[in-house]
């Protein structure tokens, strides 16, 4: 199982994203994938953000329906966000990296890796992440 990073989940749902095709293909080959509260709300907000949606964002109800349909798949699991870990988040390298590192921790706590499009993140945590090409 893989926990999908916010960027990956957003790419799966939006055709105009340059990584939409690669993420979609990866999803078809993956047995199980997951999301958590952080990645769901992050994706939800992106779907409502004009600059992320090329000036034509979705309405909240549309974005909610999209996420609901995606997470209803038999291949999908919802994982919980646990208290911050000193081992991972406590060693973060800055306020922006903190969110990424927290997702790495959530994936690790759930016994899986974080599937991400972020090459720098995958380099920082090679054993706890999976880079979707």
């Amino acid at each position, binding site marked *: 199982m893989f926990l999908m990073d916010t960027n990956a989940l957003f790419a799966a749902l939006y055709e*105009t994203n*340059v990584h939409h095709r690669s993420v979609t293909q990866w999803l078809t080959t993956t047995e199980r994938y997951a999301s958590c509260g952080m990645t769901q709300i992050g994706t939800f907000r*992106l*779907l409502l953000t004009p600059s*992320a949606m*090329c*000036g034509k964002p979705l309405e909240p109800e549309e974005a909610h329906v*999209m996420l609901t*349909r995606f997470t209803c798949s038999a291949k999908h699991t919802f994982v919980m966000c646990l208290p911050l870990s000193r081992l991972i988040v406590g060693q973060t390298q800055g306020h922006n990296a903190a969110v990424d590192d927290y997702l790495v921790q959530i994936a690790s706590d759930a016994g899986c890796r974080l599937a991400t499009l972020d090459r720098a993140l995958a380099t920082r945590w090679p054993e706890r992440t999976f880079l979707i090409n």
Partner: protein
Amino acid sequence: MLPGMATKFDDLLAEVMHLPARDRARLLSVLKELEFSVANIVHDPTESDPRASMTVITVALPEDLALLAEDAGLLSESSLQDLIRRALDEYNLRTYGVLPGQKRRLVHKNGYLVVESLPGEKPITFEQVKKILDDMEW
């Protein structure tokens, strides 16, 4: 309540009480329906004060421009809204390649819903999305 209204209302009630039971029941049903409609109107966001979702903006303009705009009728709320909407359409076309009037479609793909690309829409990259996420207030 206007003077005399209370008396007229009492008279109306007295009339109602003398109606046959079936007519009273029908009247009650109509009143309940009316109450339900009124309740819906109260809570229907589309019926709420349109100004509740407005933002007031104060802009300083060069005096000559302001006079010209006023003479041309461009300083009314509706004219300014039209001007800004047209400017936004041009901005979206220039920035994202999206034409005015194009609407988003959600399509079924791979077992879930996907936001369909609009014709001419410029692709959004990982770096652009990452910047938006980093700039978000959490």
